């Protein structure tokens, strides 16, 4: 009789973990944007005007870095936290 209750509790714990992970990921993504905006606005404009080839590579790297790198960081971080909880 207690099995469905255990499953339900396990299910809601998973949803909570998912939501917390999403929130942390969202904060990382937002912080990344602010960091890029603050650190490299003038530099990017200069690259755009003078070195289009470097600008193209940097643009692609910044875009991929924002999601891929931060997702890896978030996933790794939560794997560590989950491990400690267990």
């Amino acid at each position, binding site marked *: 009789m207690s099995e469905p209750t255990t499953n339900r509790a396990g299910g809601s714990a998973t949803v909570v973990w998912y939501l917390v992970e999403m929130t942390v990921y969202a904060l990382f993504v937002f912080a*990344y*944007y602010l960091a890029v905006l603050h650190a490299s606005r003038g530099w990017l404009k200069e690259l755009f005007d003078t070195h289009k080839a470097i600008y193209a590579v940097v643009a*692609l790297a910044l875009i991929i870095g924002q*999601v891929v790198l931060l997702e890896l960081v978030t996933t790794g971080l939560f794997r560590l936290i989950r491990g400690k909880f267990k």
Partner: protein
Amino acid sequence: MGAGFVIGVLGGFFGVGGSFLAGPALFAFGVPMNFVVGTDLAHIVGKSIVAARRHSRLGNVDFKLGLLMIAGTIPGVEAGAQGIQYLKRHANVDQVVALVFIFVLISIAIFVAWESLRTLQLGKGARFKKTHTVGSANTNRGDVSALAGVARRIHLLQFPPMISLPRSGIREVSLWAILIVAFVGGVCSGFLGGGAGYIRMPAMVYLLGVPTHLAVGTDLFEVIISGGYGTLTHALKGNVDILIALVMQTGAAIGAKLGASLTTYFHGPGIRLAFVPLPLLGAALLIYTLITGHHFG
């Protein structure tokens, strides 16, 4: 950022980069059309990687089909980008691209609405399901479509080399059919921006006979290639504003994760029917901006 978030959820759900909304929205905010195309391509790359990884874990990506399509997609993207360069030199790029965009969006919305409604109306009987299933009817990867006969006729065309796609439940299809679908998608991507999932996803379902769930995931995999190449070639031509792309992606990256999870709860014709209002909304935004000349930014 709110628009980026909404576009990200929609992109993850429908297997499209969201350019049918992002492109018109950027144009309505006063961004010139050549920057709309290049920037939109840049913002979908990262988000498509997130969504495609998620779809891959759900088993929704046919990697063999995706890799074969690259050979058609990259020349298509370059052809589209060269078209933008030509218009920048010789004509009014804003008006020409906007008009082509409106035509494509309205055509797709009408076509998908007609097909989905017809499938939902006819799709009650077991006999219909047996004769109108794309992909494998014997597994849960199969998907009912009123136009399954078109895909079956294309499968019968014997233009070698013939390719087998077991993951999509396709026993044999000409490589040329795959390359043509990929090339057309690539041209739309390079010329109109985004990953052109609005044309590639329906083409994979209706012409190649790929089940909708697999078409969504495989299209996202393809968008990584077309978006990545398109970003590089458009950035070299001075058509990418990376800071606009990053702010859009900030919302979209999170939305794409949510959207991919939502596909678990919806199925073939339902997903396709829900897609219909979105291209129409994008077309309405473009028509309004072209007629009034009013920009929101």
